[in-house]
């Protein structure tokens, strides 16, 4: 198909979608409308289970099974990336060059690392109370570790980052989610039922299984993102295709 023809097909399709979409927009409930039947019921259910953050309650309690599916997508794409970006036989490793970092940047990054880590853990731990949770906090924690790459260099990051352990922890997070779900079966309830006591409203221990599942997701997301970034950094900084100009270093 020539590129001109392709553009015409695209224009026709885009126009069709646009017309149908605009027509549909005028039939949707108006923006800012007052009728939200599902929302009202979800809020009611969350309050009945003593979870202050309704969004977390929906994610980890009312629709926990759906989140299991989402989590599996995350797990699957991490595994896929690891497989795709592995070091192949014809590629060699170059030791990463030590980078010179300006002292103020190094100081800032070394201070910011624990602060960011703490904020990430705070976001995970308060998931059932205030905005946040395992998904957001996990990403923040993973980003915090990479401040070491900014502060020192890639070799320093590699030293505190045994990728194998993070891969195991990633799987452990996924397994923990399943185990908490299965524990509900032992008590005679359905899979992923919120079987723990609900606790006092608006305290850290409220929400039954919500904090547990939150933590499991937090571990999985943090470790998954660390593993992902490790693969990308390996590819961009270390791995050279050995069949070209780096034959000499390809010994490892």
């Amino acid at each position, binding site marked *: 198909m020539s590129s001109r023809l392709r553009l015409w097909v695209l224009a026709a399709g885009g126009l069709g979608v646009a017309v149908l979409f605009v027509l549909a927009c005028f039939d949707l409930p108006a923006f800012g409308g007052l009728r939200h039947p599902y929302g009202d019921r979800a809020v009611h259910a969350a309050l009945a289970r003593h979870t202050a953050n309704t969004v977390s309650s929906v994610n980890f309690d009312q629709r926990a099974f759906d989140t299991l599916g989402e989590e599996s997508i995350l797990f699957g794409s991490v595994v896929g990336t690891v497989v795709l970006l592995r070091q192949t036989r014809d590629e060699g490793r170059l030791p990463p*060059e030590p980078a010179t970092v300006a002292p103020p940047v190094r100081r800032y990054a070394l201070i*910011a690392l624990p602060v960011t880590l703490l904020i990430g853990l705070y976001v995970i731990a308060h998931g059932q109370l205030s905005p946040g949770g395992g998904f957001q906090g996990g990403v923040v924690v993973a980003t915090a570790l990479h401040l070491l790459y900014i502060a020192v260099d890639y070799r320093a990051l590699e030293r505190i980052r045994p990728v194998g352990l993070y891969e195991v922890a990633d799987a452990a997070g996924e397994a923990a989610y399943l185990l908490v779900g299965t524990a509900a079966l032992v008590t005679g309830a359905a899979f992923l039922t919120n079987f723990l006591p609900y606790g006092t409203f608006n305290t850290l221990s409220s929400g039954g299984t919500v904090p547990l599942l939150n933590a499991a997701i937090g571990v999985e997301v943090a470790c998954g993102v660390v593993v992902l970034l490790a693969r990308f950094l390996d590819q961009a*900084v270390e791995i050279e295709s050995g069949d070209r100009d780096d034959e000499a270093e390809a010994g490892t």
Partner: protein
Amino acid sequence: MSGWTAAAAALLLCGVAPAACGAATGPVRRRVPAQNLTTTLLSLVILLLAQGYGRPAYTDPALVLAVLGPAGTLLYVRLLADQLAAHPPRPRSLLAVTALSYTAVPAVVLPLCVATGPGRAMVKLLVIGVLLVLGSRVAARAVTAAVSAGHGRTGPAEGMSDG
């Protein structure tokens, strides 16, 4: 619309939008400082909105942005060091960007502190303010350092020099 929300809208229109334009167009030497300025100002907008809606819980995104924004800028500086060294930003414009965030952060955070009154929420606001100031300071320093390191070096060692 409360005064806080109006202030947020004004800051959005007069601060964030021009800074975002600066970060979206032009050479890399302008984009990096402008990107940092955008995150700083957006964090302030979020704080103002939190106050305007009467929801202290809304400050959490600002807190996260205050630490991750500079992290993003430092990543850009690290990975685009060659381009920054090849076309260094003018020291004067860097200084202007830093001065702008130095004035904007207290100008927003201090009135918010007065409005919230002493307590945990105020400590959080002050922490965010300090993080924002430190972040914009270190971003400017990082750009300057990348430029001077690039001049001291003979050739592009690592990074993405445009071939």
